[in-house]
């Protein structure tokens, strides 16, 4: 649930999503859910020459399982905090 919370804190920021089929789209992160499905607004495709038919898409829902990378704005990520949080999550036994 850590990365779900992490992505939730990035809502409203501009991200680039690279899919496993090498399609890259950029847009504003609108929402994210527990499966890391992502909703983007103001979508633009990074390579319109290769994927011209996606140009008319304005907002998109991307299934979490097909995402390879999400590129984040570096200024909006506190890597120190994230590192601490990930370490905390693996060292502390989960309360069920």
């Amino acid at each position, binding site marked *: 649930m850590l990365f779900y919370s992490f992505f939730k804190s990035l809502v409203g920021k501009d991200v680039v999503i690279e899919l496993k089929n090498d399609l890259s789209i950029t847009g504003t992160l609108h929402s994210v859910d*527990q499966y890391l499905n992502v909703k983007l607004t103001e979508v633009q495709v990074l390579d*319109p020459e290769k994927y011209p*038919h996606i140009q008319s*898409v304005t907002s998109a829902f991307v299934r979490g399982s097909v995402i390879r990378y999400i590129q984040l704005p570096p200024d909006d990520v506190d890597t120190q905090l994230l590192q601490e949080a990930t370490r905390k999550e693996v060292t502390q036994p989960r309360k069920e």
Partner: protein
Amino acid sequence: MDLSIVNNDYYLSGMAALVGDIDKQLMIMLRDGRTLIAYLRSLDQFGNLVLHQAFERICVGRQYADIPRGLFVIRGENVLLIGELDFHQPIRVQLVEVTIEEILKLQKEDIEKKGRIEKLRQKAMIEHGLIDEGNPIEEHY
């Protein structure tokens, strides 16, 4: 039933996020590379979709054609992306509509060309002692 919760900014988790897109015309990209444009009529928690008045858009280079396909039921795992469409959006690469016969011929040529490149790539990888893992979108599930 009060549907105001669906239409405003309140966000529903999981596939329920798409409830607000029901009866809209959407573009659905599938794992096999196909692109459909259709009205979303229903969906469930797994992301299985019911699409109405679907047509498949085949795009090769700058040519495209639409093939009417009718009603679709899609298993959720095969969906890559569900996009809302705005045909008035400014576009950078203009597309030309061609006939279905023409696009199928172009698509066949394109697939053959990609197949030849893929074969060469695999050959080169094997020569370098690398194991080819194939297309992750089609294999790794």
